[in-house]
């Protein structure tokens, strides 16, 4: 027995491996009913755990804002901020230790936990939701039922410009998309690149480019087509999307239209890409980005300290002057374990009182159209919030709603490949379409 041939041993090993495989082969998970998530510890002692993905000063402001309410109510709150939210939340949910409230930055991830989440029908007063910007409320719905509450808002279809030089040169905010193209060509003719652009964002490189495509599709084809595209009722590479990419190509990727040239886009960080705009003379005149670049970590400190006198904004214009579609995003609060205290905290987050101090600290825009605008620290923020409140349609960032492999995978990757010139536009869009998961 002891002395076996090599083949003998190999066969033995194979047999053992095969046996174990067969024995454990029945071990696939049961589909659907994972249940039991409501049985986690937080439900009993009245403590409310809140998990969210923002850190540093945003986290501190958020905590302070929540504590104002919970300290008065005598509710104990446990905050669990994590920079790696998407990964941590999925581990926690599969490990049956979901937080009571999770604040999702992306509706797509929120929707993948449909079976574990509690619908908000009996938790959040409908009157609160009715006061909010309509598009963002819909982003929290799955099949028409409300699963998430918009906690904050960000507005992505904003074009920033350096106020002084822009006005001195005689440029004016365009009223239509055609005007924007004219303005682009006028600035280019003056010898300066019209646009600042950068899509580098470490492991999330590419997302600012997805916002551009989404924004142009929304402007050119309207919110219905946009939502069909996001939910994949029309293919990703539909001719309407190709048209949006063509427009982006014309505005940004034409030789001489971007500061630093096309090759610099993929290595230029999105948060600081606009900084050359504030050189004298400006190296570029326009930067389309979310309201958050006008905060710490974005524009240079000297600009941030005199925001209203140095920075101007206009919304990405519609096809006509009356058309004011806005692309945005926001944080969505969902409930895993419903208790009395959770309900109180959720309704507080939905109220017009939530976020006053946070807004004053230049970190928050409320999704409620009746939020007191005097809380915003500067004219710029009031203007930007106004774009959302006065919009003719507001849609949620599409890549955040698409399945992970597209929305934070192939869409980012292929846009980066296209912009850096290693793929053409058609290949990129076709590849994203091909990567859409089957089911």
């Amino acid at each position, binding site marked *: 027995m002891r002395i076996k041939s090599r083949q003998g041993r190999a066969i033995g090993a194979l047999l053992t*491996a095969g046996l*174990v*495989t067969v024995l*454990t*082969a029945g*071990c*696939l*998970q*049961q*589909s659907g009913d994972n249940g039991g998530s409501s049985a986690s510890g937080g439900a009993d002692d009245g403590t409310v755990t809140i998990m969210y993905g923002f850190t540093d000063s945003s986290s501190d402001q958020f905590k302070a804002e929540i504590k104002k309410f919970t300290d008065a109510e005598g509710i104990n709150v446990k905050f669990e901020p994590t920079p790696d939210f*998407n*990964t941590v939340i*999925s581990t926690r949910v599969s490990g049956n230790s979901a937080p009571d409230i999770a604040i999702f930055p992306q509706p797509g991830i929120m929707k*993948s936990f449909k079976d574990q989440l509690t619908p908000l029908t009996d938790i959040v007063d409908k009157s609160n939701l009715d006061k909010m910007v309509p598009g963002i409320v819909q982003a929290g719905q799955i099949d028409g039922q409300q699963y998430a509450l918009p906690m904050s808002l960000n507005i992505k279809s904003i074009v920033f410009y350096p106020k002084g030089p822009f006005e001195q040169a005689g440029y004016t905010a365009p009223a239509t998309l055609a005007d924007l193209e004219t303005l682009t060509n006028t600035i280019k003719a003056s010898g300066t690149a019209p646009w600042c652009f950068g899509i580098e964002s*470490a*492991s*999330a*490189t*590419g997302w600012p480019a997805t916002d551009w495509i989404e924004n142009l599709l929304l402007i050119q084809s309207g919110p219905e087509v946009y939502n069909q595209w996001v939910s994949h009722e029309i293919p990703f590479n539909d001719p309407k999307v190709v048209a949006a990419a063509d427009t982006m190509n014309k505005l940004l990727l034409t030789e001489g239209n971007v*500061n*630093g*040239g096309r*090759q*610099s886009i*993929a*290595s*230029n960080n999105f948060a600081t890409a606009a900084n*050359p705009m504030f*050189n004298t003379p400006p*190296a570029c005149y326009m930067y389309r980005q979310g309201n958050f670049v006008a905060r710490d970590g974005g524009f240079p400190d000297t600009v941030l300290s005199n925001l209203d006198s140095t920075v101007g904004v206009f919304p990405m214009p519609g096809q006509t002057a009356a058309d004011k579609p806005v692309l945005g995003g926001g944080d969505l609060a969902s409930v895993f374990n419903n208790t009395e205290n959770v309900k109180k905290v959720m309704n507080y987050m939905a109220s017009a009182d939530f976020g006053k101090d946070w807004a004053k600290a230049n970190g928050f825009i409320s999704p409620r159209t009746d939020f007191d605008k005097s809380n915003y620290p500067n004219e710029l923020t009031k203007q930007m919030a106004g774009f959302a409140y006065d919009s003719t349609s507001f849609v949620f960032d599409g890549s955040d709603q698409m*399945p*992970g*492999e597209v929305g*934070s*995978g192939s869409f980012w*990757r292929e846009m*980066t*490949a296209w912009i*850096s010139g*290693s793929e053409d536009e058609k290949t990129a869009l076709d590849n994203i379409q091909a990567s859409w*998961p089957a*089911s």
Partner: protein
Amino acid sequence: MTITILNALIAVVGGVVGAVVLYWILNKLTELLPSKPQELIKPYVFILPAFAALGFYLVYPFFQTVIYSFANRNSTEWVGFDNYTALLGSPGFQTTLINTFLWILIVPTFAIIFGLIIATLADRLRPTGEKISKTLIFLPLAISAVGAVAIWRLVYNAVPANQSQTGVLNAVWTLFGGDPVNWWQISDGKLNSFLLMVILIWTQAGFAMVLLSAAIKGVPTDTLEAARIDGAGEGKIFFSIVIPQIRATMLTVFITVLIGVLKTFDVVYVATNGNFGTNIIALNFYQALFVSRNAGQAAAIVVILMLVIVPFLIYQIRQFRAEEAAR
């Protein structure tokens, strides 16, 4: 905070005491048997807890992974070989495989070459000089891969031409009149992959140096003297006397670095996130599991990774056995 520390203490004390008590009880139980079967059984009783731990945490997950690789994204239905055919058919994964092969060939080789050069040269310095130079070369090993990339970002960074360059390479390049180059975007001839490999070689060369240096010092001086008396030059001595005697160490270093390379994920994740054709297999696995949330495909990638590693492991074990036998 105090609770955390207390918990840690309880865990450490409880773990150690628990293990002692467990072995004591097992020992007592076997001692109840008559002496003949006791002798026979005792070794197995003592090896059992370790074996069980290995089984639960290594062997069982291994088979479970193989099984999941034949199931769908939520591991709820069988899909046969779909995950494998989809992977091997996608151009993205083919690039990943090619890159992975380049990484496992180039990084260990150059880590050894540099480690060997440094070890040989440092060997000829005076003791203080040797200590200082070796410490400096060894330092990068203590830096996490993420930190290393952050450092090398300062080398490779590219900024539009009208701003001052923050990357060393481009600062020099533009000084001689060139336009700033986005080094990490140039996939021609896999240049960007090679530039990323440099980072890992930089951290691993120190590791190779330490082991190789010890091996070089272990080469018997009488063999070197004999060669010198016979009139061999330094080059001849190095290649014909030293290298053959440290071959075993070189192999160990090669395999160790190689296995480290196969598990490398952070360098590429932080630098390019696999864009511009730089993806490697461990990062691809992460993306499949945590970005696409496709458990089936992620498991299939791991199985492929395992298939790639196994031949190297077998080779190393064989080599190790041969060494033992020769001794």
